[in-house]
């Protein structure tokens, strides 16, 4: 499998097929991150389209010393943020569309999923981003700090807060100790 760097060089040299390979490699992560933060299936696809168009247009400015996945996550997070801001401004926060989604899980866990989704969507954006990158994408603290361009300590404290909020929603009967 070709590396992202090789693919980018081929694309900038005019190879359309290389761009397709690059999208195939990253689309799942990009769409899932956006979906985890918005809860909207169609919008997640639409925002992801914008992300890849931005990637395509700005490939020449991509610095090869950075990781491509970090760069694309950053664009996805910014685009999602713009989307959420716009939705709030227009005053329509859509209800989750999840009723019609096919999932890999069985029906019994549907309720739990619904609870998890709603809890994540309610988190303040800066906590939500860190939580999704950690729990859904399984990035390290260092990778998250590079993606968000912040200190590792900031990642840690946001994750701590995000989990504390989630704990109250998801595990309401779990009494805290100490």
């Amino acid at each position, binding site marked *: 499998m070709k590396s992202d760097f090789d693919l980018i060089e081929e*694309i*900038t040299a*005019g190879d*359309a097929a290389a*761009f*397709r390979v690059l*999208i*195939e490699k990253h*689309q*799942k992560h990009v*769409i*899932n991150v956006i*979906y*985890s933060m918005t809860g909207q*299936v169609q919008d*997640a*696809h639409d925002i*992801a*389209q914008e992300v*890849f*168009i931005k990637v*395509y*247009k*700005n*490939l*020449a*400015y991509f610095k090869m010393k950075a990781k491509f996945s970090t760069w694309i996550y950053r664009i996805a997070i910014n685009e999602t943020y713009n989307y959420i801001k716009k939705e709030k401004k227009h005053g329509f926060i859509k209800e989750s569309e*999840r009723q019609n*989604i*096919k*999932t*890999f*899980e069985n029906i019994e*866990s549907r309720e*739990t*999923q619904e609870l*998890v*989704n709603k809890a*994540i969507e309610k988190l303040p954006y800066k906590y939500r981003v860190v939580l999704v990158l*950690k*729990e*859904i994408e399984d990035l*390290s*603290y260092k990778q998250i700090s590079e993606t968000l361009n912040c200190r590792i300590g900031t990642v*840690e404290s946001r*994750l*701590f807060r995000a*989990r504390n909020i*989630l*704990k109250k929603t*998801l*595990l309401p009967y*779990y*009494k*805290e*100790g*100490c």
Partner: protein
Amino acid sequence: MRCYSVKRLLNRYVDKEIDETTKKFMEEHLKVCALCKKELEALLLMKHVISKKEKLEIDKNFISLLEKRLMEEKPDNETHYLTEMNYLAQRTAPVLLTLAVLVMIIIFAFYNDSQVMKDYMDNVFISKDIPVL
């Protein structure tokens, strides 16, 4: 290690962002402190619940739709690699080159022609006034 420090490090612990020595100290404390252990279990349970989160199935037309959009986009800078404009430029380049060569040949021929004429006229002129040696 005290409860306060252990609690503070539990997130790092479950995320495996901790060095071996600290991990050892924490585990020693967790063995004897039921409260901290309960905290840890809550954190692990939450991670487990979140890991059950559905994975979205991606629209099969996602890439073809994207490629279509990229083709339709108007090129606004030179970073468009696959736009129609670029495609057109690539296709018409050989034709333009041939045309350019043809034009050069015609100009060259014309220039040569006029040179012949000039030489002829010069000869006539010379032959008229200066005796040929």
